């Protein structure tokens, strides 16, 4: 059903002069999905989101949002999108509720509609108590929630979230995730960018892994981990300068080994078996940790680099 396809990109490209920030990506997002772009800084996530948000013209390729062409119907598309950009873009001189009032007017909502929605959105964003306060002194998490509330003022079908929890403390991230779950449950299509693998695993039904403007893998978090990693990972730390000496022995017992400056990552189906095998070969690390594979491991495998510098 093409009616259910909210975002369709083919060979989508964005160049700034000679530099290609988004290099021919294909993306398809259906109604009701929580879709993610996972990639490190500079991967081209924000550039992609700006094209989808119809505020940055594509350099090449095809892009359809809600069945329309951004180059022709930008304002009509934007009327049905909610955008939570990477930076908050709030008017910090205005109060919390004033920020919502003025924004609702941009979508042509009447003063009465805006006020009615403001009450519900403030409740949703857990900002009712602060509604009369100026925005400037609010915490990062509160500003972020206000930005999301503001993006919902027009009751959008699609919510674009560019790095929604970057720069927030763990507590604030969890509060925000909880709000996003509710939106998802209510049928809002979420398009999220992030460089946090835990965020992608928590929020996204399906995601693409992006690096240097290209998509390097696509699937659900589970599929990606199954395809590109093993079930478990053993993290080995050695005394200074000892790591080098043990690499060969470790390689002998595992499917794959990644050498990081401070530790070895050993990819294996069963971490405890691997540890036992290493012990038999006389490998004695300072510490050994068995954990499940994550999207971080997927990214490392696909690109040879870690997600967060």
């Amino acid at each position, binding site marked *: 059903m093409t009616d259910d396809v909210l975002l369709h990109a083919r060979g989508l490209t964005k160049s700034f002069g000679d530099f290609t920030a988004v290099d021919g990506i294909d993306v398809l997002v259906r109604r009701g999905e929580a879709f993610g772009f996972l990639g490190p800084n500079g991967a081209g996530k924000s550039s992609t989101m700006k094209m989808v948000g119809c505020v940055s013209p594509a350099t090449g390729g095809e892009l359809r949002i809600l069945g329309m062409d951004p180059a022709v119907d930008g304002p009509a598309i934007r009327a049905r999108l909610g955008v939570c950009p990477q930076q908050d873009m709030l008017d910090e001189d*205005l109060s919390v509720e004033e920020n919502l009032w003025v924004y609702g*007017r941009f979508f042509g909502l009447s003063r009465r509609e805006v006020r009615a929605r403001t009450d519900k959105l403030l409740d949703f964003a857990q900002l009712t108590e602060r509604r009369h306060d100026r925005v400037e002194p609010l915490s990062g998490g509160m500003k972020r929630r206000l930005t999301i509330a503001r993006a919902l003022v027009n009751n959008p079908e699609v919510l674009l979230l560019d790095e929604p929890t970057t720069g927030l403390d763990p507590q604030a991230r969890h509060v925000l995730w909880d709000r996003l779950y509710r939106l998802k449950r209510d049928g809002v299509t979420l398009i999220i960018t992030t460089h946090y693998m835990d965020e992608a695993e928590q929020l996204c039904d399906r995601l693409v892994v992006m690096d240097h403007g290209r998509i390097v893998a696509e699937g659900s978090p589970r599929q990606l981990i199954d395809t590109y990693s093993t079930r478990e990972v053993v993290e080995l730390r050695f005394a200074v300068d000892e790591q080098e000496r043990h690499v060969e022995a470790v390689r002998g017992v595992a499917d794959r080994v990644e050498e990081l400056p401070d530790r070895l990552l050993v990819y294996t189906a069963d971490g405890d078996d691997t540890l036992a095998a290493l012990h038999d070969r006389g490998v004695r690390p300072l510490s050994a940790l068995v954990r499940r594979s994550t999207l971080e491991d997927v990214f490392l495998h696909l690109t040879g680099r870690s997600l967060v510098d």
Partner: protein
Amino acid sequence: MSTPTATVSTAPSGRLAAGPRRPTTRGERVGAVMAHHFFVYRRTWKGSIIGRFASPLFFLLSMGLGLGALVDARAGGVAGLPYLRFVVPGILAMQAMMLAFGDSTYAVMGYIKWNRMYSAMLATPLRVGEVLGGHLAVVALQIGLATAIFLLVAAPFGAFGSWWVLLAVPVAVLTGMAFAVPLFGLSARMETDSGFSILFRFVMTPLMLFSGTFFPVAQLPAWMQPLAWVTPLSHGVELSRDASEGRWPGWLGAVHLAVLAAYVGVGWVLAHRSFSRRLLS
């Protein structure tokens, strides 16, 4: 990793029932942009309103009455007018220019890169022309209001020769916009605010002094006079003075209007282009 899923409650998400989206008119959209700026002014008007009344008084007391007494005693006025009536209409136009510089530089940069509200606006159905036009319309209203206050304060001192001085309000607005519109474009091209102080010092201040505000342009050295005529302020000053005295400016008035309108028109094209390039890259 922790599992925040557990904290999902059954409270309403705050999302509202889906409804048809009424298409908006251009007028509504520009009005919505203006409404945003009015909200901002509502927070700051107390500070600025004192200045709106105080600055005319300072000018009247120092230039009109203080310097005026001296000029009138020595030279019998300027251009056939008591100095007060010569200088005040000029200051009206000059104030419009100063307000335009004040509202079209740091403010525009702020909306572009400090709070990024222009970008926030462009994520909605608003177009660049509406974001630009709505902000400029508020600047125009500010200048109109400040000019009206100046008239009110100066009239009891006998600063104006005729009721036609009411026309000095639209003249001041047009003069101000002849600066504001191109300045919006310029500000949208500047990366940092360090250029603004140069702009104030080397563009605004000379224009204040050499545009026929305090003495006739004809008193300038011959080589400087063309500079006065190709910049907007001298034209605003002449029109303002004609209005104040109820003099019909004839074809020269048409020239003054045309120059000011050209600055607004060409300025709009440049500003629109600068905004698009900066905000929709």
